[in-house]
């Protein structure tokens, strides 16, 4: 079932990207999709964690919020870059987290890295190491709005 959905999704993606509809090209596309799915099957024997993520409305809500946060962080970082006295205070700190599922922790660490001004360097069982461009960025992470939003997600 998993591989069936994967095949269909990959093929739709291929058609979308190619935009050619002759028999030869569609056939070649199908062949390459099958090859990829076969590779994936072989790889899953090692990884063993193939799973679907439930795509919930909450996830889109989170991405919307994340994009807003990213825009705000961008403006802040750009201001600091152009300010003549370069008002930064880099810090590398340990950030405790109560998120414990691998998927959510991945989302959290990647969201932190995506936001300019904060950057995950290491992920451990119950904490992350983050590098922040300013002390304020670190304080904002500790305030935990992003973490709270991820914990509320139904993944």
């Amino acid at each position: 079932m998993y591989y069936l959905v994967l095949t269909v999704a990959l093929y739709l993606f291929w058609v979308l990207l190619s935009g050619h509809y002759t028999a030869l090209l569609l056939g070649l596309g199908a062949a390459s999709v099958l090859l990829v799915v076969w590779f994936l099957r072989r790889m899953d024997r090692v990884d063993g964690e193939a799973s679907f993520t439930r795509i919930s409305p909450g996830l889109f809500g989170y991405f919307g919020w994340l994009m807003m946060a990213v825009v705000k962080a961008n403006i802040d970082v750009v201001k600091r870059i152009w300010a003549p006295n370069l008002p930064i205070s880099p810090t590398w700190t340990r950030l405790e987290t109560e998120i414990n599922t691998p998927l959510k922790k991945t989302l959290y660490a990647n969201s932190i890295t995506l936001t300019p001004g904060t950057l995950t360097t290491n992920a451990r069982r119950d904490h992350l190491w983050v590098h922040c461009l300013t002390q304020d960025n670190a304080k904002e992470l500790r305030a935990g709005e992003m973490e709270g939003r991820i914990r509320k997600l139904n993944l």
Partner: protein
Amino acid sequence: MSMVLEILSWICLISGGFLCISGGVGLLRLPDFFSRVHASSVTETLGTPLILGGVMLQTGWSLDTIKLLMVGMFVLATNPTATHAMVKAALHDGQTPLESNDSESKATPPLENGGPKEEEANQEEDPSSS
């Protein structure tokens, strides 16, 4: 209508270009590797999407719009991965972030509070020196 789209598109393109330049300026101005990474993420997380958005408005509604949207999504999805890989490599190489209360002060000894594991590995002798 097309005039509005044109103006909107150029606003996106120009502000995207400005953000990319800002990223470059940040790369030059910021003091160490780790803070420079923050500057480069400005280019990727807002500069690129704005430019892609501007191009999208120029092409109008077609299959290319969806392709551009996907390019944007992939850039956003791969940015954290690439950034993280780079930072990890730097840590493995023994770089430590410049920590400061004011940006003038020299790096403090970084890891009194028990830093990440990579630091222990760094105590090994440099293979290139043997």
